[in-house]
Structures are given as structure tokens and as C-alpha cells.
């Protein structure tokens, strides 16, 4: 064999060479003509899809017995009762479960949506405001420092936020914020939700605020980077036309990045819907009722799963685990629906932007 072995495989297909050398050559050829990258790319595109399909499939298979027994009661009932593990096993539709089971996930589902809604309601305006101020108002050096803190806030582990929420923030809300709001809201029918018993600091308001704190850095950091991308020219034009800062932000900057901000908000919402341990530590784990007002103890799907899973293992019939799989499935469907809705919203938002916002 010659020292300068040809890279191109000869007419004999390189049959005379040892197998390792032949494979090496074939590989080099593939890398050079781009086949390898193409296949890696295809695999990369397929794997996430397969993973999602696999997780959904597993959840559906595991949840199937629970779906058949629980029926629609799962979406309308409020008690989350695993039944008596020490009683004699009974059967419904041929599926074994402990006596006295009653799985109604209404408090979990409503709680998940309520906490996420509160978090978004607070986080989106705060984040956009923070991003605008950082980009357009603060001196460059200060903006860098503030931006750094914003990113550090995103890096705080959720269990730390949960600890702080449980021991410091929650009691502060119970002792100061909740009584203040409850006593100052006028006694009109529509506002009953903001009045009444102010609770213990573990509940809807605390959970929503904790989630807001956790998603503000996600939305704000993305919004800041987006707003930086808005060209100077249209903004200068707006100022030249006599627009105030607020008008400039509202009519030029924000329409320009509108779809991006919706996308950032959806990222934040996804985090809020699925956040587990921080919420579990501040929500009060009320498995039986939907919170009657803003301060009541409640629970979310993720918090219920993480705190109650250990007990579910003690159900010898496996029905409790199956019901938890159903709960997980519901959370996943909610998250997927939110994503689809956000995509539709993005299309609308980017369609309605002012001409000036779509470039000159």
C-alpha cells in the first residue's frame, strides 16, 4: 500500500484495505460531501418529536385505567381522595381500586390556570417596562449592572425561592399586603374575590407573586434583547414627529418587537404552568377546594403530583399512580394548548403592527 493512500475509493470499493481503514474513508467522504451533517440534522429534528410522542403515549397508557374510572368527574369534582389503602379492594368496570376513591382535579386545574394568570398579569407589564428602561433610559454602565441582576434572578434555584416564599414573603403577605387589599377593596359584587378572610400566607396570591418573580427575568431579558434590535432610525423619526417617549415606545418600539414579546411571555407562561417545588412550598396544598378568594390555600397540578406521589406508591392496585398520570396528562395538554394559542396570537400581533413598525 502506498504512503499517500487515495481518499477517493477506487473502483474496487477499497476492498483491499482493512475494514477500519475502509470505514474511516467512507466516513471522511460522508463528512466532506455533507451527508453526515445532514443525517445528524435529521436525527436532531426527529428526536424531540419522538420524545414528545413517547411521553404523551406513556402517559396515556398509564392513565387509561384512571380515565375510564374517573370519567368526567375528574374535571368537575373537587375532592382528591386516594381512598382507604387498608380497606378491601373493589372494582369499577373491571379496574381494581381501593374503596372510597374520588379523584376530582378541579382545584388542581383551576389553581394551575389561576396562578399562571396572576403571574403573567404582573410579569408582562413589569418586564416590558424594565426592558424599555434598561435599553432607552439608563446610562450604559448602569444598564449593564441592572441587566446582570436580572439574569442572576433567573438563575436562583426555585427551591430557594420557595424557601423564601414560605418563611418570609408568605407571612409578610398574610400580615401586611393581604389585609390591606382586603380592607380597601369596595364591597361590590364583582370584587368579592379580593375580599374576605386573608388566610395564612400560603395560597393563591403568594403562589402567583412567586411565579411572577420567577418569570420576570425570562420575559424581561428576552424583551431587552429584542428592543435593542429595533433600529434607531424609525425611533428618531418618531421623536422628530414630536412623539413623547411613551408614544414612541407604544407606536414604534413595541409593535416592532410585538411578536417576540408574545413569544417571551409564552416561555414565561410555560415555566409558570409547570413550576413545581416553589409553588408546592407556598400554595398550602389544599386538595379539596378551589380557593374562595385571592388569599385562600390552593394547589396546582405540579404541586399536587410532587407532594402526593409518595403516598400513591402505597396504593397496591396502582390506581393512585394511574390517576397521577392522568393529572400529568392534563398538565401536558394545557401546556400544548397554550403554545398553540400563543402561535395564533403571534400571527395576529405581527399582522397588526403599524407600517412604521415593519421597517422602512
Amino acid at each position: 500500500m502506498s504512503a499517500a493512500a487515495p481518499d477517493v475509493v477506487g473502483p474496487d470499493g477499497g476492498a483491499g484495505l482493512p475494514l477500519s481503514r475502509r470505514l474511516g474513508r467512507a466516513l471522511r467522504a460522508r463528512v466532506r460531501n455533507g451527508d453526515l451533517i445532514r443525517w445528524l440534522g435529521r436525527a436532531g429534528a426527529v428526536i424531540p418529536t419522538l420524545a414528545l410522542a413517547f411521553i404523551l403515549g406513556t402517559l396515556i397508557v398509564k392513565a387509561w385505567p384512571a380515565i375510564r374510572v374517573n370519567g368526567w368527574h375528574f374535571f368537575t369534582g373537587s375532592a382528591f381522595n386516594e381512598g382507604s389503602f387498608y380497606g378491601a379492594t373493589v372494582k369499577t368496570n373491571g379496574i381494581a381500586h381501593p374503596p372510597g376513591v374520588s379523584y376530582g382535579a378541579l382545584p388542581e386545574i383551576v389553581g394551575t390556570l389561576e396562578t399562571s394568570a396572576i403571574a403573567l398579569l404582573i410579569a408582562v407589564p413589569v418586564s416590558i417596562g424594565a426592558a424599555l428602561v434598561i435599553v432607552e433610559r439608563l446610562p450604559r454602565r448602569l444598564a449593564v449592572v441592572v441587566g446582570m441582576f436580572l439574569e442572576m434572578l433567573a438563575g436562583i434555584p426555585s427551591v430557594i425561592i420557595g424557601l423564601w416564599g414560605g418563611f418570609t414573603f408568605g407571612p409578610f403577605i398574610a400580615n401586611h399586603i393581604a389585609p390591606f387589599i382586603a380592607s380597601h377593596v369596595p364591597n361590590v359584587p364583582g370584587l368579592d374575590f379580593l375580599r374576605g378572610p386573608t388566610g395564612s400566607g400560603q395560597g393563591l396570591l403568594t403562589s402567583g407573586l412567586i411565579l411572577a418573580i420567577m418569570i420576570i427575568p425570562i420575559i424581561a431579558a428576552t424583551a431587552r434583547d429584542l428592543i435593542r434590535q429595533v433600529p434607531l432610525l424609525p425611533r428618531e423619526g418618531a421623536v422628530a414627529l414630536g412623539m413623547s417617549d411613551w408614544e414612541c415606545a407604544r407606536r414604534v418600539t413595541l409593535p416592532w418587537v410585538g411578536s417576540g414579546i408574545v413569544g417571551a411571555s409564552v416561555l414565561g407562561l410555560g415555566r409558570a404552568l409547570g413550576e413545581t417545588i416553589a409553588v408546592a412550598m407556598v400554595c398550602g396544598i389544599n386538595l379539596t377546594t378551589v380557593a374562595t378568594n385571592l388569599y385562600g390555600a390552593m394547589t396546582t397540578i405540579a404541586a399536587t403530583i410532587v407532594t402526593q406521589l409518595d403516598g400513591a406508591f402505597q396504593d397496591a392496585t396502582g390506581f393512585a399512580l394511574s390517576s397521577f398520570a392522568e393529572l400529568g396528562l392534563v398538565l401536558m395538554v394545557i401546556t400544548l394548548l397554550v403554545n398553540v394559542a400563543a402561535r395564533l396570537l403571534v400571527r395576529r400581533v405581527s399582522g397588526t403592527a403599524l407600517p412604521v413598525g415593519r421597517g422602512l
Partner: protein
Amino acid sequence: MFPLFGAWQTAYNKTVTNVNITTAGTGSGTGIADAAAGVVTMGGSDAYLSSAEMAQNHNLLNIPLAVSAAMISYNLPGVKANLKFNGTVLAKIYSGKITTWNDPAIKALNPGVALPSTKIVTLHRSDSSGTTFIFVSYLSAQDPTDWPVGQVGTTVSWPSAPGALAELGNGGMVSGCAATKGCIAYIGTSYLTQTTAAHLGEGELANKAGKFELPTPASIQAALASFSGSTPANETQSLINTSAPTGYGIINYEYVIVNKKQSSAAVASALKAFLNWTLTTGSTATFLAPVNFQPLPASVKALSQTQISSISG
């Protein structure tokens, strides 16, 4: 169970160098599931296996290694005396029917004690817990009307009492109660040092005879004596609501859950040696006193040893 296992592990690994035991502080349910699946060699639990679990996993054994109790703690700085409770009053407190400390029902049990009008904040475990199981077992044994049998389990669908707090673990119960004036909580007696340090009150509990007792070594032993004679061969037994007049109402066997069929003869014999050690050297005051556990009575210890000897490879 976990802190004691940790102490046992450290001491045993020192004396028997060719066996290495590691402990994981998971909950009872995970411990049982892992023992059944053969992931771990031993699982710890405050609650015994249900008949359904036994039927599904014929090879699972629940073996008592020690005796523990649960106490009622409360945060009422002005009240120096030990308050008295019974199952009915506790069930009504936990279901939101009694909401203030000066409620007539509490006053009736505690004549002569000046009770404040402070609101009662009930604390319950947010995780699944053997302590929850023995506490609600006691409520139901004392008063099945106010606490139905269906509401007994390691996870309880708590009736919503206004302002109720959910806490993670015995430690969370202690710190939560310490931070909340007017709270009431049920906590494993292994946390007595912590509750005393946090200035929490300790409740006297009514037994079946209607006598009020604190969870002391003497009252736990008295309650134990009323049950240990009737402990069955598989050692599945509730020790709640003793009829002994000097006994304490909420005690339990601390179980280790093991699979009768181990992966090899070597693992089986190492496991048997360790479990027998926990019942002898491991049951001395050096190990049990720091967590306020009591050793098993001789008759139950013999039953545990018989169960241990049935483990094979």
C-alpha cells in the same frame, strides 16, 4: 425513621467493615415501592403494609425494629400548663368546626386554664406521611363520627379549616408552628428536642379509658404492653388508642420493609446480620434515646427475629 437508620449505618459500617450500608431519606411510599421492586434492600415506614399490598407482593415483610409515638404541639406563649386533648376535639379542630382556642369544648377539657381567644391555625403534612397516618387513625378510633374511617391514610384529603397550613416533613411542622401563634400540629416525638427549643407546648392526649397522658417512656411502654401480647406473626398491627389507663394514645411500630427473597445468599445473610444487630446492639439507649424511640418488648422482638430468619437468597 431516616435519622435512626443513619446512626445505625454509621455505627454498623464501623464494626462490620465488609458490609457497606447506605441510606436514602425518601418517604414511606417510595421506600415500600423500592423494596418491592428490589431497588433497595430495606425500606423504612411508620405505617404497616396494607392487606392489598401484602397480597400483591407475597414476599414483602414488615418487621418492627423499634417503637415511636406522635405528639400534639401548639404555640400559645401565654399558656404554661400542658393542654389536654381528645380525639373529638382534635377532629373538630382539624375539620374547622372549632376555630378559636377558648372554644367551650377545649375549655371543658382544660378547667382552670386561661385560654386566649387566638384563632387556631391547623398544621398538616403536605407530603404523604406515616405520622399523618397514625394521627388520623387516632382521631377515627376515638370519634368515627367526626373523623370517618375513609379519611384515614398516609395522604389525607384534609377538610378545609380556615387558614390551615401545609408543611413538608416533621421539620417543616416544627418551624411552621414556631412561626405561627395559635398553631396546632402533630409531630413525631423524635422531634421533641426541637419543639422544646422552639417553646412549643406539648399536649396531653386522652386514651380509650379517658385518661390524659403525655408521650413519656412510661406511658408509651404502658400502651405497648396492652398491644404486644396480641401482635400477629406478620406483625401488622395498629397500636392506636390504648385501653391501658396509663398508656399514651398514638404510638406505632417503626417498620423496616424488606423483600423475603434477596438477590443472593450473600446479600440475604448480610441483611439478616444487620437486622439482628439493630434489634440487639442497635436497640440500646445510645441509639434510641436521641430520637425518643422505645425498644421492642421481648415477645415482639422474638416475632421480628423469626421474620428476619425467613429471609433467604
